[in-house]
């Protein structure tokens, strides 16, 4: 009987497991493209991070990352009063305080700004700082190519409340949970939202636990199914890209914890940005997924890839207790 059951188990195991091996894939030569990551938000200077695509199998080391940043482009933003050129700011020429501010606004990892010379485009011209309802035209001239886009900053929609709630994965667990919010969606169709959060409580070294804001899976949604409703929603913590933090690989992975202080940014965005961020999210989350279909991030940049986004920002803080 024992042998019989062993015999019967073999195919079952084969069915469930299968096998895998590493293969070499000869990729076709594809010309590199320019990639824009640009944001304009109320009360803050617009910024543009200009990079270029790399071959898929190139190593992802710091060299590759810093080499992908493009210098010497002519980047202008027009808020209706004529185009204004943005300045090229390189991290090597900034003071540590400026670098911190730079990281705060752009979400670029401060560690990377310290270790590599990274250049982005922004301005100290307060006339160009973001205003709700205003339209911003982007024009980039680089290496003989022209990239353009346009966006508007939508009216921010406030959350009624935000709070922390235990997940109770185990009945006796009294520390791990999710961040929750209550949204009353305005009664007009077409509102799009994006959630991002960051633990700003400090670790032993006195640094914020999360160096930048994190957008967990499913961070972007629209009101097609929830138009005019008031409802609660929750998000997991998410994780930094290739995080080696212990709490991203132990039982705390994905959870906020009692004692955390969370800064929340709840963005109101346009439909084009919604299309980009959902496809971007899909692109990232289906990497290595059998059932996922190949999804390119749906850019709003003419002549390139990436996004030129207007963010209507509602900010709040959660103290986890």
């Amino acid at each position, binding site marked *: 009987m024992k042998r019989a059951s062993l015999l019967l188990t073999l195919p079952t195991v084969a069915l469930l497991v299968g096998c895998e091996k590493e293969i070499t894939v000869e990729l076709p030569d594809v010309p590199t493209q320019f990639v824009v990551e640009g944001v304009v938000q109320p009360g803050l200077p617009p910024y543009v991070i200009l990079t270029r695509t790399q071959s898929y199998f190139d190593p992802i080391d710091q060299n590759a990352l810093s080499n992908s940043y493009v210098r010497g482009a002519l980047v202008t933003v027009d808020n209706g009063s004529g185009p204004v050129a943005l300045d090229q700011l390189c991290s090597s020429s900034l003071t540590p305080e400026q670098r911190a501010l730079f990281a705060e606004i752009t979400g670029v990892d401060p560690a990377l700004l310290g270790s590599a010379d990274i250049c982005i485009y922004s301005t100290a011209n307060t006339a160009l700082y973001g205003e709700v309802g205003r339209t911003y035209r982007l024009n980039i001239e680089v290496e003989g190519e022209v990239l353009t886009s346009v966006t508007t900053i939508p009216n921010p929609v406030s959350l009624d409340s935000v709070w922390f709630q235990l997940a109770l994965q185990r009945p006796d667990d009294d520390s791990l949970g999710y961040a929750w919010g209550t949204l009353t969606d305005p009664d007009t169709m077409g509102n799009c939202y994006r959630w991002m959060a960051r633990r700003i409580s400090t670790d032993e070294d006195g640094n914020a636990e999360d160096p930048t804001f994190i957008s967990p899976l499913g961070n972007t949604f629209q009101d097609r199914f929830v138009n005019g409703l008031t409802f*609660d929603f929750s998000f997991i913590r998410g994780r930094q890209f290739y995080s080696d933090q212990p709490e991203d690989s132990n039982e705390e992975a994905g959870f906020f914890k009692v004692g955390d202080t969370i800064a929340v940014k709840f963005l109101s965005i346009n439909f084009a940005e919604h299309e980009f961020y959902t496809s971007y999210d899909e692109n990232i989350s289906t990497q290595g997924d059998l059932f996922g279909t190949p999804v*390119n991030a749906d850019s709003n940049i003419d002549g390139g890839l990436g996004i030129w986004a207007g963010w209507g920002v509602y900010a709040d803080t959660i103290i986890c207790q």
Partner: protein
Amino acid sequence: MRPLLALFTLLLFSLSSAAQSTFSVSGYVKDAANGETLIGAVVYDKETKQGATTNTFGYYALTLQPGPHTLVMTYIGYANEERTIELTASMTVTFEARTNTIVAKEFEVVGERNEQNTEGTQMGTVDIDVQKLGTLPALLGEVDILKTIQYLPGVKSNGEGNSGFYVRGGGPDQNLILLDNATVYNASHLFGFFSVFNADAVKNIELIKGGMPANYGGRTSSVLDITMKDGNDKGFHGQGGIGLISSRLTLEGPIINDKSSFIVSARRTYIDVLAKPFLNPEGAFAGSGYYFYDLNAKANYRLSDKDRFFLSGYFGRDVFELKGSEPGSPDFRIPWGNATVSGRWNHVFGPKLFLNTTAIFSDYKFSFKGGQDDFVFGLSSGIKDYGLKLDFNQYPSARHTLKYGLNYTYHIYTPSTVDVASGDTDFDIDTPSKLRAHEAAAYFLDEFDVTDLFRVNAGMRVSYFAHVGSFNEYLLDSSGNTVGQREYKPGELVKAYYGFEPRLSMRYKTGPASSIKASFNRNLQYVHLASFSSIGLPTDVWIPSGKNVKPQIVYQYAVGYFRDLWDRKYEASVEVYYKDMFNQIEYREGAQPQDGGNTNYDALLVFGKGWSYGAEFFLKRRLGKFTGWAGYTWSKTMRKFPDVSEGREFPSRWDRRHDISLVVGYELNDRWSFGSTFVYSTGQATTLPVQRYFIEGRVVSQFSDRNSFRMAAYHRLDLAATLKNKPTKEVKDKTTGEVTTVERKYRSSWTFSVYNAYNRANPYFYYFTTEGTTANNDLRPVAKQVSLFSILPSVTWNFHF
């Protein structure tokens, strides 16, 4: 159209000129052992060589001059039977065929009937003898009809995990799969590893991959017409098998001797039961499970020689459950399955006119219920059909066989119902419109001998499809936002289509054992299958034609040369085809199932065209201890969609440049037989990331044009050996001590098979991941290939009594 009109005129003329002073001989051909009617048996007059072939119900009719005749019945695997008659009036002759013990020993897996290769007008048609499938190697010993037809040239599979098949560049939705005349919408179990057809309950399978005659319609690529057994009307019998992952049992017998019989066949897998003890009750996937089962049942009643009733049904379900215990990991439950019921009435009006009336119910359902913490997501889709078919076969003269009829089906589609809730809040998703449609068709065809050498099968089908209310149409603005709704009342016409479907196939005999055949057909298909993934999952959704979704239109042209060699021991053929496919659909790039709520059912689709051409070579040895065949196909299948890859043409998912299959059987003696199959095909076309970039510090993949990359080729060798118990046993008479040899009542056999004998790691899918860490600064992307089955031996025990 003009040549067709000419053809019909010719046909009518030849009908009216048929001689009056003839009589007809008609009747059924049955298996003497179990009373099953035989499909495709040939009855001919020995002198004039005029003959007829039995239809799906085993009925034939011949028109002959008065006087003495010798009729001969031939059917492969059975002894020829002769009957001498004196024809003075129309009469009925029923043949009871006996298995020919000599021929039956020969290994005959898939056989076109005797001379059909060169005699019939049909191109690309293959009949499959189900009884012989058991001697071929099968995955885990599960005899599989759909897998077997994929060894034929022009029919392709997608490898493991995909029992959808692709005929001459057409999609899996373009195959008309009929089980006792009822449409089966999803023919696979276990995500495509096994087909829903339990071979024990099946009598006959006919595959038509080109030159579809006018009596079939509604699909554009092929017909797979499966006939269930009627049930033995002579005595009670059973058969079954115990395999590694499933068991089967079939019982059949008379209800009233020689008048009425039944058959019931059931099958269930026990992977879930087997796997349960090995899943840690507190482990990651405790409570997960998978199983499928199916049930076939059929009964028939012969009221008289003129009337016969059949009631048959199929019911099958797959259930897949996954329960994750990791934080934030999802739970889901996915049941899906088909149910079909068909009731049929055969009526013989006179020897020359046969009517089959079928009432059909078919139901296909798929649902998905999943959740993650407080978030619950449901998705369901399905089709329900109610249909009625009237099919006439008429045999007006020796040179003509007419078929004409009417079909009507009422469809109810549930394209994709989304249901979302988070905590106590039910999201505001309208109950989506079920889609209702009338589909109707009328057809007429005549297969006739223009001369002794030239035979034509000409037909016309007229089809009609109407999407009707109740229906809620969302009115959208240019960016896809809903600006209003329009409501259609029950029965109100939303959109109607109709079309002519001319069908023509011809055979010209170039010699006693060779012929040239040609065919043309135009087919319309009013339903489309839209797939989110590249591997054919039950999440695929059937979408009917409507306001924006036009019917698929396919034109196919084919020419072939057919020849029997060496006393018809071998048959060979070469066929070339060209096919144009219009109004094909795909999901738009990046569409996800959950995007389908609160908008029109066709909002996620894009439309384009496709074309396919190829050459198929086939050589088969049908007699002798060694039998089998070799097939080779060269083909190319492309698609072009304005909204995919910026309008550039791209290879279809089922494009395979080269496709080879070899099937060999060897019958050592009356106990041991061996079988082997080998397949090779060009790798599947797929879409891979070619570049990457960074946004918000994350790696974003940039994909190539659709399907611009080829996976590694697929090839595999399978082996099987079957050992039967001795057909006879010796019985010693207790009183006399005399030893006599008698046939055993209980027969059993062991089938040992090895799947993927040389352990080829065939690609199932490729994925991309990273290795190394940022801390060590050695992070790099890598490509991985996942294969499903390594070498896999199995054993199955089968019995019958």
